[in-house]
Protein backbone atom coordinates (compact mmCIF):
# COMPACT_ATOMS: atom_id res chain seq x y z
CA UNK A 1 0.00 0.00 0.00
CA UNK A 2 2.78 2.38 0.84
CA UNK A 3 4.58 1.61 -2.41
CA UNK A 4 1.33 2.19 -4.18
CA UNK A 5 0.93 5.52 -2.44
CA UNK A 6 4.32 6.70 -3.58
CA UNK A 7 3.50 5.89 -7.19
CA UNK A 8 0.17 7.65 -6.82
CA UNK A 9 1.89 10.75 -5.52
CA UNK A 10 4.44 10.63 -8.30
CA UNK A 11 1.67 10.24 -10.88
CA UNK A 12 -0.23 13.11 -9.32
CA UNK A 13 2.76 15.39 -9.46
CA UNK A 14 3.43 14.34 -13.04
CA UNK A 15 -0.12 15.29 -14.05
CA UNK A 16 0.22 18.41 -11.97
CA UNK A 17 3.25 19.61 -13.87
CA UNK A 18 1.30 19.28 -17.10
CA UNK A 19 -1.47 21.46 -15.73
CA UNK A 20 0.98 23.88 -14.15
CA UNK A 21 2.84 24.32 -17.41
CA UNK A 22 -0.17 25.66 -19.27
CA UNK A 23 -1.47 27.50 -16.20
CA UNK A 24 1.78 29.47 -16.12
CA UNK A 25 1.14 30.68 -19.65
CA UNK A 26 -2.40 31.70 -18.73
CA UNK A 27 -1.19 33.55 -15.69
CA UNK A 28 1.50 35.32 -17.61
CA UNK A 29 -0.83 36.59 -20.28
CA UNK A 30 -3.22 37.76 -17.60
CA UNK A 31 -0.54 39.41 -15.56
CA UNK A 32 0.81 41.29 -18.50
CA UNK A 33 -2.35 42.23 -20.34
CA UNK A 34 -5.28 41.65 -18.05
CA UNK A 35 -6.81 39.23 -20.52
CA UNK A 36 -7.70 35.59 -20.03
CA UNK A 37 -6.77 33.94 -23.29
CA UNK A 38 -9.06 31.02 -24.10
CA UNK A 39 -6.91 30.25 -27.11
CA UNK A 40 -3.68 29.94 -25.15
CA UNK A 41 -3.62 26.15 -25.25
CA UNK A 42 -4.37 25.97 -28.94
CA UNK A 43 -1.75 28.57 -29.78
CA UNK A 44 0.75 26.52 -27.81
CA UNK A 45 -0.35 23.35 -29.57
CA UNK A 46 -0.05 25.04 -32.95
CA UNK A 47 3.48 26.21 -32.26
CA UNK A 48 4.35 22.77 -30.88
CA UNK A 49 3.31 21.42 -34.27
CA UNK A 50 5.61 23.97 -35.91
CA UNK A 51 8.41 22.74 -33.66
CA UNK A 52 7.63 19.15 -34.66
CA UNK A 53 7.67 20.11 -38.28
CA UNK A 54 11.04 21.84 -37.94
CA UNK A 55 12.38 18.70 -36.32
CA UNK A 56 10.96 16.59 -39.17
CA UNK A 57 12.72 18.83 -41.69
CA UNK A 58 16.02 17.86 -40.16
CA UNK A 59 16.65 20.34 -37.37
CA UNK A 60 17.95 18.80 -34.18
CA UNK A 61 15.49 18.78 -31.29
CA UNK A 62 16.99 21.70 -29.41
CA UNK A 63 17.29 23.80 -32.55
CA UNK A 64 13.72 22.96 -33.51
CA UNK A 65 12.49 23.94 -30.05
CA UNK A 66 14.45 27.17 -30.14
CA UNK A 67 12.99 27.92 -33.54
CA UNK A 68 9.52 27.00 -32.37
CA UNK A 69 9.77 29.30 -29.37
CA UNK A 70 10.90 32.22 -31.49
CA UNK A 71 8.02 31.63 -33.84
CA UNK A 72 5.70 31.30 -30.85
CA UNK A 73 6.78 34.72 -29.64
CA UNK A 74 6.05 36.20 -33.02
CA UNK A 75 2.70 34.43 -33.27
CA UNK A 76 1.66 35.67 -29.84
CA UNK A 77 2.73 39.21 -30.51
CA UNK A 78 1.05 39.28 -33.92
CA UNK A 79 -2.18 37.85 -32.59
CA UNK A 80 -2.29 40.52 -29.92
CA UNK A 81 -1.55 43.27 -32.35
CA UNK A 82 -3.91 42.17 -35.11
CA UNK A 83 -6.83 40.69 -33.26
CA UNK A 84 -6.87 41.65 -29.60
CA UNK A 85 -5.77 45.27 -29.69
CA UNK A 86 -8.58 46.47 -31.98
CA UNK A 87 -11.27 45.05 -29.71
CA UNK A 88 -9.69 45.69 -26.33
CA UNK A 89 -11.29 49.08 -26.06
CA UNK A 90 -14.76 47.59 -26.34
CA UNK A 91 -14.48 45.82 -23.05
CA UNK A 92 -13.92 42.34 -21.76
CA UNK A 93 -16.53 40.32 -23.59
CA UNK A 94 -15.46 41.27 -27.09
CA UNK A 95 -11.92 40.25 -26.17
CA UNK A 96 -13.11 36.94 -24.70
CA UNK A 97 -15.07 36.22 -27.84
CA UNK A 98 -12.11 37.05 -30.02
CA UNK A 99 -10.00 34.59 -28.08
CA UNK A 100 -12.77 32.03 -28.59
CA UNK A 101 -12.68 32.65 -32.31
CA UNK A 102 -8.91 32.24 -32.23
CA UNK A 103 -9.35 28.99 -30.33
CA UNK A 104 -11.49 27.61 -33.15
CA UNK A 105 -9.10 28.84 -35.81
CA UNK A 106 -5.90 27.41 -34.30
CA UNK A 107 -7.63 24.21 -33.28
CA UNK A 108 -8.66 23.36 -36.82
CA UNK A 109 -5.77 24.90 -38.69
CA UNK A 110 -3.31 22.48 -37.14
CA UNK A 111 -4.85 19.23 -38.47
CA UNK A 112 -5.51 20.88 -41.79
CA UNK A 113 -1.82 21.67 -42.11
CA UNK A 114 -0.33 18.59 -40.56
CA UNK A 115 -3.02 15.89 -40.52
CA UNK A 116 -5.27 14.60 -37.80
CA UNK A 117 -3.26 11.51 -36.88
CA UNK A 118 -1.59 10.87 -33.61
CA UNK A 119 2.20 11.20 -33.71
CA UNK A 120 5.23 11.00 -31.46
CA UNK A 121 7.21 13.97 -30.24
CA UNK A 122 10.77 13.44 -29.12
CA UNK A 123 11.56 13.97 -25.48
CA UNK A 124 14.17 16.47 -24.35
CA UNK A 125 15.03 14.24 -21.45
CA UNK A 126 15.08 10.87 -23.14
CA UNK A 127 13.03 7.93 -22.01
CA UNK A 128 14.86 7.12 -18.83
CA UNK A 129 13.00 6.01 -15.77
CA UNK A 130 14.15 6.34 -12.18
CA UNK A 131 13.20 3.62 -9.77
CA UNK A 132 12.34 4.62 -6.21
CA UNK A 133 11.57 1.36 -4.53
CA UNK A 134 8.79 -0.15 -6.57
CA UNK A 135 7.65 3.26 -7.74
CA UNK A 136 8.78 4.69 -11.03
CA UNK A 137 9.38 8.25 -12.02
CA UNK A 138 10.12 9.21 -15.59
CA UNK A 139 13.08 11.47 -16.24
CA UNK A 140 10.75 13.41 -18.38
CA UNK A 141 8.35 14.32 -15.59
CA UNK A 142 11.22 15.55 -13.49
CA UNK A 143 12.63 17.47 -16.42
CA UNK A 144 9.28 19.03 -17.19
CA UNK A 145 8.86 20.24 -13.64
CA UNK A 146 12.36 21.67 -13.50
CA UNK A 147 12.06 23.45 -16.81
CA UNK A 148 8.67 24.93 -15.96
CA UNK A 149 9.87 26.11 -12.57
CA UNK A 150 12.93 27.63 -14.21
CA UNK A 151 10.85 29.30 -16.91
CA UNK A 152 8.35 30.53 -14.38
CA UNK A 153 11.12 31.90 -12.19
CA UNK A 154 12.73 33.58 -15.16
CA UNK A 155 9.52 35.34 -16.06
CA UNK A 156 8.90 36.21 -12.44
CA UNK A 157 12.29 37.88 -12.28
CA UNK A 158 11.64 39.69 -15.52
CA UNK A 159 8.25 40.87 -14.37
CA UNK A 160 9.20 41.93 -10.89
CA UNK A 161 12.84 42.86 -11.03
CA UNK A 162 13.33 44.53 -14.35
CA UNK A 163 12.17 47.80 -15.76
CA UNK A 164 10.61 46.00 -18.67
CA UNK A 165 8.60 43.85 -16.35
CA UNK A 166 7.52 46.86 -14.36
CA UNK A 167 6.33 48.45 -17.54
CA UNK A 168 4.36 45.35 -18.45
CA UNK A 169 2.68 45.09 -15.09
CA UNK A 170 1.91 48.77 -15.01
CA UNK A 171 0.35 48.61 -18.43
CA UNK A 172 -1.78 45.66 -17.44
CA UNK A 173 -2.96 47.44 -14.32
CA UNK A 174 -3.73 50.74 -15.94
CA UNK A 175 -2.76 51.25 -19.54
CA UNK A 176 -3.68 54.89 -19.69
CA UNK A 177 -1.79 56.18 -16.74
CA UNK A 178 1.27 54.11 -17.45
CA UNK A 179 1.41 55.34 -21.02
CA UNK A 180 1.16 58.83 -19.64
CA UNK A 181 4.23 57.95 -17.63
CA UNK A 182 6.01 57.04 -20.81
CA UNK A 183 5.48 53.30 -20.96
CA UNK A 184 4.63 52.28 -24.51
CA UNK A 185 1.47 50.29 -23.86
CA UNK A 186 1.13 48.67 -27.27
CA UNK A 187 4.61 47.23 -27.08
CA UNK A 188 4.02 45.95 -23.57
CA UNK A 189 0.89 44.09 -24.58
CA UNK A 190 2.60 42.52 -27.52
CA UNK A 191 5.49 41.43 -25.35
CA UNK A 192 3.15 39.92 -22.82
CA UNK A 193 1.31 37.89 -25.39
CA UNK A 194 4.53 36.90 -27.07
CA UNK A 195 6.02 35.62 -23.83
CA UNK A 196 2.83 33.84 -22.87
CA UNK A 197 2.72 31.99 -26.16
CA UNK A 198 6.36 31.05 -25.66
CA UNK A 199 5.45 29.55 -22.31
CA UNK A 200 2.45 27.74 -23.77
CA UNK A 201 4.64 26.30 -26.53
CA UNK A 202 7.24 25.28 -24.02
CA UNK A 203 4.47 23.52 -22.15
CA UNK A 204 3.41 21.79 -25.35
CA UNK A 205 6.92 20.69 -26.17
CA UNK A 206 7.34 19.28 -22.67
CA UNK A 207 4.08 17.38 -22.52
CA UNK A 208 3.80 16.16 -26.11
CA UNK A 209 6.28 13.31 -25.64
CA UNK A 210 4.03 11.83 -23.00
CA UNK A 211 0.60 12.78 -24.28
CA UNK A 212 1.53 12.44 -27.97
CA UNK A 213 0.93 15.11 -30.51
CA UNK A 214 -2.34 15.71 -32.26
CA UNK A 215 -4.64 18.69 -32.36
CA UNK A 216 -6.34 17.64 -29.13
CA UNK A 217 -3.08 17.93 -27.15
CA UNK A 218 -4.18 20.87 -25.05
CA UNK A 219 -7.93 20.39 -25.23
CA UNK A 220 -8.14 18.22 -22.17
CA UNK A 221 -5.52 20.22 -20.32
CA UNK A 222 -6.98 23.69 -20.72
CA UNK A 223 -9.78 23.26 -18.24
CA UNK A 224 -7.34 21.98 -15.65
CA UNK A 225 -5.00 24.83 -16.45
CA UNK A 226 -7.77 27.35 -15.94
CA UNK A 227 -8.70 25.72 -12.66
CA UNK A 228 -5.06 25.73 -11.58
CA UNK A 229 -4.61 29.37 -12.50
CA UNK A 230 -7.79 30.32 -10.70
CA UNK A 231 -6.83 28.24 -7.68
CA UNK A 232 -3.49 29.93 -7.41
CA UNK A 233 -4.82 33.35 -8.20
CA UNK A 234 -4.77 34.53 -11.78
CA UNK A 235 -2.09 37.08 -11.30
CA UNK A 236 0.31 34.83 -9.51
CA UNK A 237 2.88 32.78 -11.39
CA UNK A 238 3.74 30.85 -8.28
CA UNK A 239 0.05 30.28 -7.75
CA UNK A 240 -0.25 28.69 -11.18
CA UNK A 241 2.46 26.16 -10.38
CA UNK A 242 1.13 25.42 -6.91
CA UNK A 243 -2.39 25.25 -8.25
CA UNK A 244 -1.38 22.79 -10.93
CA UNK A 245 0.37 20.49 -8.51
CA UNK A 246 -2.45 20.62 -5.99
CA UNK A 247 -4.97 19.76 -8.66
CA UNK A 248 -2.90 16.96 -10.10
CA UNK A 249 -2.31 15.41 -6.71
CA UNK A 250 -5.88 15.75 -5.51
CA UNK A 251 -7.29 14.27 -8.66
CA UNK A 252 -4.95 11.30 -8.71
CA UNK A 253 -5.28 10.53 -5.02
CA UNK A 254 -9.07 10.73 -5.17
CA UNK A 255 -9.32 8.56 -8.26
CA UNK A 256 -7.17 5.92 -6.64
CA UNK A 257 -8.60 5.83 -3.17
CA UNK A 258 -12.16 7.05 -3.41
CA UNK A 259 -14.12 4.34 -5.18
CA UNK A 260 -17.12 6.50 -5.85
CA UNK A 261 -15.05 8.90 -7.87
CA UNK A 262 -13.03 6.30 -9.71
CA UNK A 263 -11.34 7.32 -12.89
CA UNK A 264 -14.25 8.70 -14.84
CA UNK A 265 -15.39 11.36 -12.37
CA UNK A 266 -11.96 12.49 -11.31
CA UNK A 267 -12.28 15.83 -13.04
CA UNK A 268 -14.86 16.77 -10.46
CA UNK A 269 -12.23 16.75 -7.76
CA UNK A 270 -10.21 19.76 -8.94
CA UNK A 271 -13.40 21.64 -9.67
CA UNK A 272 -14.75 21.01 -6.20
CA UNK A 273 -11.47 21.97 -4.56
CA UNK A 274 -11.42 25.13 -6.62
CA UNK A 275 -14.92 26.02 -5.54
CA UNK A 276 -14.14 25.44 -1.88
CA UNK A 277 -10.90 27.41 -1.97
CA UNK A 278 -12.48 30.29 -3.81
CA UNK A 279 -15.28 30.52 -1.28
CA UNK A 280 -12.71 31.22 1.40
CA UNK A 281 -10.29 33.14 -0.81
CA UNK A 282 -12.26 34.58 -3.70
CA UNK A 283 -9.16 35.56 -5.60
CA UNK A 284 -7.28 32.33 -5.22
CA UNK A 285 -4.55 31.17 -2.87
CA UNK A 286 -2.02 33.79 -3.79
CA UNK A 287 -4.21 36.32 -5.45
CA UNK A 288 -4.49 39.83 -4.20
CA UNK A 289 -8.01 40.82 -3.42
CA UNK A 290 -9.15 43.48 -5.81
CA UNK A 291 -10.06 46.80 -4.43
CA UNK A 292 -13.54 47.84 -5.26
CA UNK A 293 -13.80 51.47 -6.10
CA UNK A 294 -17.15 53.06 -5.59
Amino acid sequence: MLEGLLQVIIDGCASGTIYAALALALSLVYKSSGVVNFAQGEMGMFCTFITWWLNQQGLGLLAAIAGGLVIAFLVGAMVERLFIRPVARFGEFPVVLTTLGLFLVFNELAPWLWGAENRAFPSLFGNGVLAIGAARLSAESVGTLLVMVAAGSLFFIVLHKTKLGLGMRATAANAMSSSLSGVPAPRMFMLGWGFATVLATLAGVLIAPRLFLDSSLMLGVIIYAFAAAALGGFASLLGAVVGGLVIGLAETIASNYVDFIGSDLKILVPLTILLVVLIFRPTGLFGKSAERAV
Partner: protein
Amino acid sequence: MNDRPDALRWLLTATLTAVMLSGAAVLGSFHLGQLTVAAAYCIAIVGLNVVVGIAGQVSLAQGAFFAIGAYATAILRVRYDLPFPVVLLAAGVVTSLIGFVAGLPALRLRGHYLAIVTLGLSVAVAPVANRWSSLTGGGAGLNLGQVHVPAGLGLSPEQYLYAWGVLLAAAAVIIASRVARSPLGIAMSAVRDNEIAAMGMGVDLRWVKTGAFAASAFFGGVGGGVFALSVGFVAPENFLPMLSLLLLVGVIIGGSGFIPGSILGALFVQFVPDYAAALDKHLGGVFFGVAIIIFIRFMPEGPLRALSALLGTRNRLFFKRRST
Protein backbone atom coordinates in the same frame (compact mmCIF):
# COMPACT_ATOMS: atom_id res chain seq x y z
CA MET B 1 -38.19 54.85 -18.66
CA ASN B 2 -39.63 53.51 -21.89
CA ASP B 3 -37.32 53.99 -24.75
CA ARG B 4 -39.74 52.73 -27.32
CA PRO B 5 -43.51 52.98 -27.54
CA ASP B 6 -45.25 49.86 -26.29
CA ALA B 7 -47.53 49.54 -29.28
CA LEU B 8 -44.62 49.51 -31.68
CA ARG B 9 -42.92 46.83 -29.68
CA TRP B 10 -45.99 44.63 -29.68
CA LEU B 11 -46.45 45.16 -33.39
CA LEU B 12 -42.89 44.17 -34.14
CA THR B 13 -43.09 41.11 -31.97
CA ALA B 14 -46.41 39.95 -33.35
CA THR B 15 -45.33 40.50 -36.93
CA LEU B 16 -42.07 38.69 -36.50
CA THR B 17 -43.75 35.77 -34.78
CA ALA B 18 -46.40 35.53 -37.48
CA VAL B 19 -43.76 35.59 -40.20
CA MET B 20 -41.78 32.89 -38.50
CA LEU B 21 -44.82 30.71 -37.99
CA SER B 22 -45.90 31.01 -41.57
CA GLY B 23 -42.55 29.52 -42.48
CA ALA B 24 -43.95 26.21 -41.32
CA ALA B 25 -46.08 26.07 -44.41
CA VAL B 26 -43.31 26.67 -46.91
CA LEU B 27 -40.19 25.21 -45.42
CA GLY B 28 -39.20 21.58 -45.72
CA SER B 29 -38.82 19.46 -42.63
CA PHE B 30 -35.04 19.66 -42.69
CA HIS B 31 -35.08 23.45 -42.49
CA LEU B 32 -37.82 23.39 -39.91
CA GLY B 33 -35.69 21.09 -37.81
CA GLN B 34 -32.74 23.47 -38.07
CA LEU B 35 -34.89 26.44 -37.12
CA THR B 36 -36.41 24.62 -34.19
CA VAL B 37 -32.94 23.99 -32.84
CA ALA B 38 -32.16 27.66 -33.44
CA ALA B 39 -35.26 28.50 -31.42
CA ALA B 40 -34.00 26.27 -28.63
CA TYR B 41 -30.68 28.11 -28.66
CA CYS B 42 -32.56 31.41 -28.72
CA ILE B 43 -34.39 30.57 -25.52
CA ALA B 44 -31.13 29.59 -23.86
CA ILE B 45 -29.37 32.69 -25.13
CA VAL B 46 -32.16 34.87 -23.80
CA GLY B 47 -31.58 33.30 -20.41
CA LEU B 48 -27.86 33.84 -20.60
CA ASN B 49 -28.45 37.40 -21.70
CA VAL B 50 -30.44 38.00 -18.52
CA VAL B 51 -27.67 36.87 -16.23
CA VAL B 52 -24.74 38.19 -18.24
CA GLY B 53 -26.11 41.15 -20.13
CA ILE B 54 -28.50 42.51 -17.58
CA ALA B 55 -27.24 41.33 -14.24
CA GLY B 56 -23.63 41.45 -15.32
CA GLN B 57 -22.70 38.10 -13.82
CA VAL B 58 -20.29 35.98 -15.82
CA SER B 59 -21.88 32.63 -16.48
CA LEU B 60 -20.35 29.84 -18.47
CA ALA B 61 -22.87 27.38 -17.11
CA GLN B 62 -25.64 27.92 -19.62
CA GLY B 63 -24.62 24.84 -21.58
CA ALA B 64 -24.99 22.81 -18.40
CA PHE B 65 -28.50 24.16 -17.83
CA PHE B 66 -29.33 23.41 -21.45
CA ALA B 67 -28.13 19.85 -20.92
CA ILE B 68 -30.05 19.42 -17.69
CA GLY B 69 -33.24 20.63 -19.34
CA ALA B 70 -32.66 18.37 -22.32
CA TYR B 71 -32.08 15.32 -20.16
CA ALA B 72 -35.01 16.14 -17.86
CA THR B 73 -37.25 16.41 -20.89
CA ALA B 74 -35.93 13.19 -22.39
CA ILE B 75 -36.33 11.27 -19.15
CA LEU B 76 -39.87 12.51 -18.57
CA ARG B 77 -40.93 11.79 -22.12
CA VAL B 78 -39.38 8.34 -22.19
CA ARG B 79 -40.67 7.26 -18.80
CA TYR B 80 -44.01 8.98 -18.56
CA ASP B 81 -44.94 10.28 -22.01
CA LEU B 82 -46.29 13.53 -20.61
CA PRO B 83 -47.43 16.34 -22.91
CA PHE B 84 -45.08 19.09 -24.02
CA PRO B 85 -46.13 21.96 -21.76
CA VAL B 86 -45.84 19.80 -18.66
CA VAL B 87 -42.50 18.38 -19.66
CA LEU B 88 -40.96 21.68 -20.65
CA LEU B 89 -42.23 23.44 -17.57
CA ALA B 90 -40.91 20.67 -15.37
CA ALA B 91 -37.56 20.81 -17.17
CA GLY B 92 -37.42 24.55 -16.66
CA VAL B 93 -38.30 24.34 -12.98
CA VAL B 94 -35.85 21.55 -12.20
CA THR B 95 -33.09 23.37 -14.01
CA SER B 96 -33.85 26.67 -12.32
CA LEU B 97 -33.52 25.05 -8.90
CA ILE B 98 -30.09 23.84 -9.90
CA GLY B 99 -29.43 27.28 -11.35
CA PHE B 100 -30.26 28.88 -8.05
CA VAL B 101 -27.69 26.72 -6.30
CA ALA B 102 -25.20 27.33 -9.11
CA GLY B 103 -25.69 31.03 -8.57
CA LEU B 104 -24.54 30.90 -4.99
CA PRO B 105 -20.84 31.20 -5.87
CA ALA B 106 -21.72 34.46 -7.59
CA LEU B 107 -22.25 35.92 -4.17
CA ARG B 108 -18.59 35.52 -3.43
CA LEU B 109 -16.85 35.43 -6.76
CA ARG B 110 -16.48 37.84 -9.62
CA GLY B 111 -15.05 38.01 -13.10
CA HIS B 112 -12.69 35.29 -14.20
CA TYR B 113 -13.11 33.29 -11.02
CA LEU B 114 -16.86 33.10 -11.43
CA ALA B 115 -16.31 32.22 -15.07
CA ILE B 116 -14.14 29.24 -14.23
CA VAL B 117 -16.44 27.95 -11.55
CA THR B 118 -19.46 28.14 -13.82
CA LEU B 119 -17.45 26.53 -16.60
CA GLY B 120 -16.77 23.76 -14.13
CA LEU B 121 -20.46 22.98 -14.07
CA SER B 122 -20.45 22.64 -17.84
CA VAL B 123 -17.44 20.36 -17.67
CA ALA B 124 -19.16 18.16 -15.12
CA VAL B 125 -22.21 17.41 -17.28
CA ALA B 126 -20.82 14.77 -19.61
CA PRO B 127 -18.96 12.67 -16.99
CA VAL B 128 -21.95 12.73 -14.65
CA ALA B 129 -24.37 11.84 -17.44
CA ASN B 130 -22.09 8.98 -18.40
CA ARG B 131 -21.85 7.69 -14.85
CA TRP B 132 -25.52 8.01 -13.93
CA SER B 133 -26.48 5.74 -16.78
CA SER B 134 -29.54 4.26 -15.09
CA LEU B 135 -31.14 7.68 -15.39
CA THR B 136 -29.53 9.10 -18.48
CA GLY B 137 -28.90 6.10 -20.66
CA GLY B 138 -25.18 6.65 -20.24
CA GLY B 139 -23.05 6.97 -23.35
CA ALA B 140 -25.69 5.50 -25.63
CA GLY B 141 -28.09 8.24 -24.67
CA LEU B 142 -31.87 8.35 -24.70
CA ASN B 143 -34.15 8.19 -27.68
CA LEU B 144 -37.24 10.34 -27.38
CA GLY B 145 -39.09 8.63 -30.18
CA GLN B 146 -41.62 10.07 -32.56
CA VAL B 147 -43.67 13.08 -31.58
CA HIS B 148 -47.44 12.60 -31.77
CA VAL B 149 -49.14 15.65 -33.13
CA PRO B 150 -52.58 16.20 -31.60
CA ALA B 151 -55.23 15.10 -34.06
CA GLY B 152 -57.01 17.81 -35.94
CA LEU B 153 -54.04 20.13 -36.29
CA GLY B 154 -52.99 18.67 -39.61
CA LEU B 155 -49.34 19.37 -38.98
CA SER B 156 -46.34 17.18 -39.47
CA PRO B 157 -44.23 16.51 -36.38
CA GLU B 158 -41.57 18.91 -37.64
CA GLN B 159 -44.11 21.66 -38.19
CA TYR B 160 -45.62 21.09 -34.79
CA LEU B 161 -42.26 21.22 -33.04
CA TYR B 162 -41.29 24.26 -35.05
CA ALA B 163 -44.44 26.10 -33.98
CA TRP B 164 -43.69 25.27 -30.37
CA GLY B 165 -40.13 26.45 -30.80
CA VAL B 166 -41.12 29.77 -32.34
CA LEU B 167 -43.83 30.47 -29.79
CA LEU B 168 -41.61 29.61 -26.85
CA ALA B 169 -38.73 31.66 -28.23
CA ALA B 170 -41.07 34.62 -28.73
CA ALA B 171 -42.43 34.15 -25.22
CA ALA B 172 -38.91 34.02 -23.83
CA VAL B 173 -37.93 37.23 -25.56
CA ILE B 174 -41.06 38.99 -24.41
CA ILE B 175 -40.88 37.81 -20.83
CA ALA B 176 -37.19 38.56 -20.47
CA SER B 177 -37.59 41.99 -22.05
CA ARG B 178 -40.35 42.80 -19.61
CA VAL B 179 -38.28 41.57 -16.71
CA ALA B 180 -35.41 43.72 -17.95
CA ARG B 181 -37.63 46.77 -17.78
CA SER B 182 -39.23 45.82 -14.48
CA PRO B 183 -37.96 46.93 -11.09
CA LEU B 184 -36.17 43.59 -10.79
CA GLY B 185 -34.46 44.15 -14.10
CA ILE B 186 -33.44 47.62 -13.10
CA ALA B 187 -32.02 46.24 -9.89
CA MET B 188 -30.05 43.73 -11.97
CA SER B 189 -28.70 46.48 -14.20
CA ALA B 190 -27.72 48.41 -11.14
CA VAL B 191 -25.81 45.43 -9.83
CA ARG B 192 -24.11 45.11 -13.19
CA ASP B 193 -23.13 48.72 -13.41
CA ASN B 194 -21.96 49.25 -9.88
CA GLU B 195 -22.49 46.72 -7.17
CA ILE B 196 -21.61 48.93 -4.27
CA ALA B 197 -23.81 51.76 -5.42
CA ALA B 198 -26.61 49.25 -5.91
CA MET B 199 -26.16 48.03 -2.38
CA GLY B 200 -26.25 51.59 -1.29
CA MET B 201 -29.62 51.96 -2.97
CA GLY B 202 -30.97 49.05 -1.05
CA VAL B 203 -30.72 46.32 -3.64
CA ASP B 204 -30.37 42.92 -2.04
CA LEU B 205 -27.48 41.48 -4.00
CA ARG B 206 -28.11 37.95 -2.82
CA TRP B 207 -31.55 37.66 -4.30
CA VAL B 208 -30.71 39.53 -7.44
CA LYS B 209 -27.70 37.43 -8.28
CA THR B 210 -29.14 34.05 -7.43
CA GLY B 211 -32.43 35.08 -8.98
CA ALA B 212 -30.66 36.00 -12.19
CA PHE B 213 -28.96 32.63 -12.28
CA ALA B 214 -32.20 30.84 -11.53
CA ALA B 215 -33.95 32.74 -14.29
CA SER B 216 -31.18 32.03 -16.78
CA ALA B 217 -31.31 28.37 -15.80
CA PHE B 218 -35.05 28.27 -16.33
CA PHE B 219 -34.70 29.54 -19.86
CA GLY B 220 -31.68 27.35 -20.44
CA GLY B 221 -33.62 24.32 -19.30
CA VAL B 222 -36.63 25.06 -21.48
CA GLY B 223 -34.32 25.65 -24.42
CA GLY B 224 -32.66 22.32 -23.76
CA GLY B 225 -36.07 20.69 -23.65
CA VAL B 226 -37.04 22.09 -27.03
CA PHE B 227 -33.70 20.88 -28.37
CA ALA B 228 -34.27 17.38 -27.06
CA LEU B 229 -37.76 17.20 -28.52
CA SER B 230 -36.58 18.46 -31.88
CA VAL B 231 -33.51 16.27 -32.28
CA GLY B 232 -35.24 13.33 -30.65
CA PHE B 233 -32.06 12.13 -28.99
CA VAL B 234 -29.86 13.14 -26.06
CA ALA B 235 -26.33 11.93 -25.43
CA PRO B 236 -23.45 13.35 -23.39
CA GLU B 237 -21.46 14.24 -26.52
CA ASN B 238 -23.99 16.93 -27.39
CA PHE B 239 -23.37 18.85 -24.19
CA LEU B 240 -19.69 19.58 -24.03
CA PRO B 241 -18.27 22.75 -22.41
CA MET B 242 -17.94 24.35 -25.83
CA LEU B 243 -21.72 24.70 -25.87
CA SER B 244 -21.59 27.20 -23.00
CA LEU B 245 -19.04 29.20 -24.91
CA LEU B 246 -21.16 29.10 -28.05
CA LEU B 247 -24.18 30.37 -26.16
CA LEU B 248 -22.05 33.22 -24.85
CA VAL B 249 -21.06 33.95 -28.44
CA GLY B 250 -24.78 34.16 -29.21
CA VAL B 251 -25.33 36.67 -26.43
CA ILE B 252 -22.50 38.96 -27.43
CA ILE B 253 -23.14 38.77 -31.15
CA GLY B 254 -26.74 39.78 -30.64
CA GLY B 255 -25.79 42.51 -28.27
CA SER B 256 -25.20 41.88 -24.59
CA GLY B 257 -28.14 43.19 -22.60
CA PHE B 258 -30.32 43.55 -25.67
CA ILE B 259 -32.79 40.72 -25.32
CA PRO B 260 -34.25 40.66 -28.84
CA GLY B 261 -30.68 40.40 -30.12
CA SER B 262 -30.70 36.85 -28.80
CA ILE B 263 -32.63 35.88 -31.91
CA LEU B 264 -29.80 37.00 -34.11
CA GLY B 265 -27.29 35.38 -31.81
CA ALA B 266 -29.14 32.08 -32.03
CA LEU B 267 -29.30 32.21 -35.82
CA PHE B 268 -25.60 33.03 -35.92
CA VAL B 269 -24.61 30.14 -33.68
CA GLN B 270 -26.84 27.66 -35.47
CA PHE B 271 -26.25 28.55 -39.11
CA VAL B 272 -22.84 30.14 -39.48
CA PRO B 273 -20.97 26.91 -38.58
CA ASP B 274 -22.95 25.10 -41.30
CA TYR B 275 -22.17 27.70 -43.93
CA ALA B 276 -18.57 27.64 -42.79
CA ALA B 277 -18.43 23.86 -43.22
CA ALA B 278 -20.04 24.19 -46.63
CA LEU B 279 -17.13 26.36 -47.73
CA ASP B 280 -14.70 23.61 -46.88
CA LYS B 281 -15.66 20.64 -44.82
CA HIS B 282 -12.27 20.46 -43.16
CA LEU B 283 -12.13 24.14 -42.28
CA GLY B 284 -15.59 24.76 -40.88
CA GLY B 285 -14.18 25.67 -37.48
CA VAL B 286 -11.64 28.04 -38.94
CA PHE B 287 -14.23 29.98 -40.91
CA PHE B 288 -16.59 30.07 -37.98
CA GLY B 289 -13.83 31.39 -35.74
CA VAL B 290 -12.96 34.00 -38.33
CA ALA B 291 -16.63 34.97 -38.59
CA ILE B 292 -16.77 35.50 -34.84
CA ILE B 293 -13.60 37.57 -34.85
CA ILE B 294 -14.80 39.76 -37.70
CA PHE B 295 -18.27 40.21 -36.25
CA ILE B 296 -16.92 41.27 -32.90
CA ARG B 297 -14.36 43.54 -34.45
CA PHE B 298 -16.88 45.53 -36.40
CA MET B 299 -19.99 45.06 -34.34
CA PRO B 300 -18.82 44.62 -30.78
CA GLU B 301 -22.12 45.62 -29.33
CA GLY B 302 -24.33 43.80 -31.69
CA PRO B 303 -25.55 44.68 -35.15
CA LEU B 304 -28.41 46.89 -34.09
CA ARG B 305 -26.19 49.31 -32.31
CA ALA B 306 -23.81 49.22 -35.23
CA LEU B 307 -26.73 49.88 -37.51
CA SER B 308 -27.90 52.84 -35.52
CA ALA B 309 -24.37 54.19 -35.39
CA LEU B 310 -24.16 53.79 -39.16
CA LEU B 311 -27.45 55.55 -39.67
CA GLY B 312 -26.12 58.31 -37.51
CA THR B 313 -29.28 58.45 -35.54
CA ARG B 314 -29.10 58.72 -31.84
CA ASN B 315 -32.30 57.00 -32.42
CA ARG B 316 -34.94 56.36 -29.89
CA LEU B 317 -36.17 53.42 -31.89
CA PHE B 318 -33.99 50.75 -30.34
CA PHE B 319 -31.78 52.10 -27.65
CA LYS B 320 -31.59 54.52 -24.86
CA ARG B 321 -28.58 56.74 -25.03
CA ARG B 322 -25.83 54.95 -23.23
CA SER B 323 -23.16 56.64 -21.26
CA THR B 324 -19.80 54.93 -21.74
